[in-house]
């Protein structure tokens, strides 16, 4: 296998756990089996019914060649003797009945299994989606959106594929094989045993194939994943690719990855060819053997011609589904892998769990925030907040100032409970945030960051995201208050302009204004602005700041900004360093003093006067 140039350009990273030790994979299998059992439990009765139907259906299907044999053996001789087609007519009637039964039960099976399968799929989709939404931000930051998306799309599709095509094929193949084997023995023990001689060989061969295909399958997945990542990144980053003449090198890497994928696929196809060859060979040799031995028995009148004919028919039925098994096995593998990943997601505990018995927030919320000896660390060895005590009275606007990594954003994230403290507690109006249910908390605390995501839908929909029951007028009022009304009104369809995928034409500043309007409409008691104005140009920022003066008048606010212009609207400034508040006071007093803030402010003034 060729992996040579891959490592060098890709660089090193802590690899995802692709190769799993035996113990872990057993555990994983158990976990996905538990999930499967859980999903299927509500359908115990329909599944029992399904089993009954499939048994009848296969019995009917298997009966038909047997009935042909009976027709030939018992129906024809009376006719050649001239005693009428009585028996034959009965046999033909039974065949027709079996054919109809088989068709009807097969239809019922496909309908019922389709319905159960889709219901399970729907439930799985709901669970995984809901669970992802419950999991904390810290989880999402580690897991990345790309993997969330592939769990909910390609993995679910892999299972859907199994339910749609594979499952039916497998059940049919297995039942046909067992049924046929049984029937052969009933028809004629002697000949039956001869026909079943290759069975152990067949099982061994299938086991070999299964083992091989696990390896081949993994290699295919690995190589295709690399092809996809490289492809998508080249296309999303095409601007950088073209601007830096990256094309030839990219082509070189892509060709290599593409070739690796081709080789993996070739191995897979060859394995399929080997398997088919083996099955066909064993099958044909068996037919030949039965013909010889059966012919010999028939000559000696030990079996009838009808039995021999039935044997030849059944053997064909026996080997045909075996060939489908090879196709099925890949589907099964990808569904199994998908289920493993999905069950892993579902077992993930939400990092910020909802309280069992939520406490109410005193109404109306005043917005008093208190940190009591709050400690926090993303990684244990590197505490971000080593023990913070802080009280922000209701209605106060606080500006957080400090270098990158001082803990400003962490502090903001604690108040919006994106993370829980490692020790100590954060209180809102005297209630521990961990005792508030999500809806109450989110109504009271809203955070606006630099990342302002717009959902597909209209501009109005996006503003209304802050308060789904807001009227059109309230939406407009919010936009006006924040200074976004002019530009929205200037869009092709005003508030009804679709943003969605083509929202790319909207500038970062414009998106930010919509995000502000959204936050304003939500009308929280505590508003957190984390670098929220940095992508605005100066006039827009100025406009937002004017609006902020009114907006912040009666609510608690926490403002984080690199630019000191934003700080001026605050009642109080906190200078942070290494997770501690090192200066605290109204802006004018700090400026007048000779501390860090005074220094920063002087430097800022100088930069303006240049």
């Amino acid at each position, binding site marked *: 296998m060729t992996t040579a140039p891959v490592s060098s*350009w890709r*660089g*090193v*990273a802590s690899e995802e756990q692709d190769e799993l030790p035996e113990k872990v994979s057993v555990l994983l299998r158990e976990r996905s089996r538990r999930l499967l059992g859980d999903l299927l439990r509500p359908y115990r009765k329909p599944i029992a019914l399904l089993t009954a139907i499939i048994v009848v259906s296969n019995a009917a*299907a298997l009966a038909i060649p047997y009935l042909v044999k009976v027709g030939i053996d018992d129906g*024809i001789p009376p006719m050649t003797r001239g005693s009428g087609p009585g028996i034959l007519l009965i046999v033909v009637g039974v*065949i*027709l009945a*079996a*054919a109809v039964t088989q068709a009807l039960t097969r239809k019922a099976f*496909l309908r019922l299994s389709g319905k159960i399968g889709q*219901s399970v799929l*729907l439930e799985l*989709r*709901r669970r995984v989606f*809901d669970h*992802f*939404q419950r999991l904390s931000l810290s989880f999402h930051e580690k897991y*990345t*959106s790309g993997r*969330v*998306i592939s769990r909910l799309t390609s993995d679910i599709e892999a299972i859907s594929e199994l339910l749609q095509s594979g499952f039916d094929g497998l059940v049919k193949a297995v039942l046909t094989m067992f049924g046929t084997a049984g029937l052969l023995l009933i028809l004629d023990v002697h000949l039956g045993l001869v026909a079943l001689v290759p069975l152990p060989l067949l099982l061994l061969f299938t086991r070999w194939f299964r083992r091989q295909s696990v390896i081949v399958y993994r290699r295919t997945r690995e190589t295709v994943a690399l092809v996809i990542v490289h*492809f998508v990144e080249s296309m999303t980053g095409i601007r*950088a690719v073209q*601007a*830096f*003449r*990256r094309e030839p090198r990219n082509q070189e890497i892509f060709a290599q990855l593409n070739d690796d994928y*081709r080789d993996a*696929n070739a191995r897979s196809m060859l394995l399929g060819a080997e398997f088919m060859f083996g099955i066909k060979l064993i099958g*044909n040799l068996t037919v*030949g053997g039965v*013909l*010889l031995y059966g*012919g010999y028995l*028939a*000559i000696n009148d030990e079996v009838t*011609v009808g039995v*021999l*004919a039935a044997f030849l*028919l059944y053997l*064909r039925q026996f080997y045909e589904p075996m060939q489908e098994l090879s196709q099925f096995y890949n589907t099964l593998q990808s569904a199994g892998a998908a289920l493993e990943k999905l069950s892993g997601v579902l077992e993930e505990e939400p990092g910020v769990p909802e309280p069992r018995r939520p406490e109410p927030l005193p109404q109306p919320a005043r917005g008093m925030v208190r940190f009591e000896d709050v400690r926090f660390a993303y990684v244990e060895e590197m505490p971000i907040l080593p023990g913070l005590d802080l009280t922000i009275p209701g209605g106060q606007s606080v500006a957080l100032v400090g270098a990158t990594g001082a803990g400003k954003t962490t502090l903001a994230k604690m108040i*919006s409970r994106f993370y829980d403290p490692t020790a100590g507690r954060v209180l809102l109006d005297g209630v521990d945030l961990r005792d508030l249910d999500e809806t109450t908390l*989110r*109504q009271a605390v809203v955070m606006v960051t*630099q990342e302002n*995501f717009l*959902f597909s839908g209209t501009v109005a929909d996006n503003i209304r995201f802050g308060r789904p029951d807001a009227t059109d007028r309230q939406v407009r009022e919010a936009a006006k208050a924040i*200074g976004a009304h*002019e530009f929205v009104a200037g869009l092709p369809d005003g508030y009804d302009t679709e943003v969605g995928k083509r929202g790319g*034409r909207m*500038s970062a500043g414009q998106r930010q204004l919509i995000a502000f309007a959204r936050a304003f409409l939500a009308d929280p008691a505590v508003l957190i602005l984390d670098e929220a104005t940095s992508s605005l*140009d*100066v*006039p827009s920022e100025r406009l937002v700041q004017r609006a902020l003066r009114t907006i912040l008048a009666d609510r608690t606010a926490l403002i984080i900004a*690199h*630019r000191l212009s934003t700080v001026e609207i605050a009642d109080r400034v906190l200078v942070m360093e290494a997770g501690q508040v090192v200066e605290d006071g109204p802006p004018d007093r700090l400026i007048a003093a000779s501390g860090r803030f005074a220094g920063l402010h002087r430097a*800022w003034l100088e930069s*303006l006067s*240049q």
Partner: protein
Amino acid sequence: MPPDTDTPRRPLLSSNSLWRMKSYLRPYAARLVLIWLAAILSIAASIALPLISEKVIDGPVTRGDSDGLLPLGLIALGVGVVEAGLIFLRRWTQVKPVLGLETAIRDDLYEHLQRLPMGFHGDWQSGQLLSRATTDLSTIRRFLGFGMLFLVMNVLQLITVTVLLLNKYWPLGLLVLASAVPIVWTSLRFEKRYIKISRQVQDEQGDLATLVEESAIGIRTIKAFGRRHHVYDRYDEAARKVYGSSVDKANLSAKFFAFLEVIPNVTLALVLLLGALAVGSGSMTLGTLVAFTTLMLQLVWPIASLGYILAMAQEAMTSADRVMEVMDTVPAIESGTRTIELPRGHLRFEGVGFTFPGADGPVLRDVWLDVHPGETVAVVGATGAGKTTLTALVPRLIDPTVGRVTIDGEDVRALDLTTLRSLVATAFEEPTLFSMSVRENLMLGRLDATEEELADAIRTAQAGFVYDLPWGLDTRIGEQGLSLSGGQRQRLALARAVLSRPRVLVLDDTLSALDVETEALVEEALRHVLREATGIVVAHRASTVLLADKVALLRDGTITHVGRHHELLADVPEYRELLAQDADFDPSEGALR
């Protein structure tokens, strides 16, 4: 035009695009002949087996002749081995052409996509392109590799067996032939309905995927507003739609498959009845009847799979259309031929205008700007004034719709594209990092940079943090690796641009995510770099503007003023409005557009 959904025009049975792909198979002509030969021979072998059985029953068994049995039996065994061998031969020979075709098309598609300009990529989501490069190509591969062969083989087998049956005993043969009529008719009807509902399911799954994407990427916003239930309800509605159509689809297939199975079985019953009568009346032997039924069962699978294979053919054609749709897009930006011997970096915009295709008004109009070698110009303008568009014209990420951009007097469109883009380097506001090592990310534009040059660029961009990453410069970053902060990413993008040692350096608001102190350090270092190159700096802040020798004020898509920072600050109210940080300034008259 790009499609609005994932389902662009889908003509029924237009095999044109698929047919055009045949050139990819040309190198494998000899193998293809072998494949067909093996396929046809294996059909012959599989038909021969029941015929031998007939001979055994009618000959040795009926006559009680055990000596005649052995040769026939051995022939049957031989034919069986040969058939298996032929199947292996066919599949083995197939591997190379089938995968070669897929790999070659994918390589070509990727190459073509890399050549297509920004305008194209802006209109197409990468997911759409990916599905063409993966799903669609696999569909084509499956059809050309298996489907097409099976289609022809099945038809061949159907014809041969029917002819054999007619030949054996024509009344029964006719009966079998007649039974094909309802099957073909239903198959065709089923196919139409099945395609329709399959597409519906596909489209609805696409909608569901969009919701999934939004819920994953917008998770911070959803959390910040506590809108989990709102988002869930939207998803649930779409998921139930998928459920409904999928159940309908399953029900449709159930009906069809059941029908496909009942017809051959009913026919079998009739054959038995009429065959028995014929044997009774002596117009047919017992062996023939046995062979007849065996042969008939051989028809069941080819017939049943016909509908499936036809659906596969349809899908492959659609996929081929989708792939060719991209391949047929002519790159709007073609390389010129001229090169510049000793580039000085004299950049001029001469009456440049730009309008997005289909947009109402121009983004840029009548832009004139002269940047002398070594000079740096800051471009200042309100949100949406066209600054980024202006900078994209220099390395020809887009081409102007009016006027021209020249470097050292040469129209950039006349220049060889590689030459041009090695003259110009851009650091973008939203830096693109790839899932590769830091080193590979930095050397994007210059694979031959030395370690020293690399270290210099890192120093200039204040990106020394890379040495502290777990594997230093070999650490993988990007979506599949270590995640970096916005400021770190911007510094890497800057280092990348500096490393490529351009004659013209474009900084598109590259420092916006840096904190004040780092920004000051970066600016200090940049001064040296900009002294040696011609620079265009898009700026929002006074501090960045000071990197430049002169400032161009961009307003409503055109440059209204060019001058020094202090002059503009003193003389031009619009400029003051944009850059003065004075919070008491009155923005009463439409500062926002």
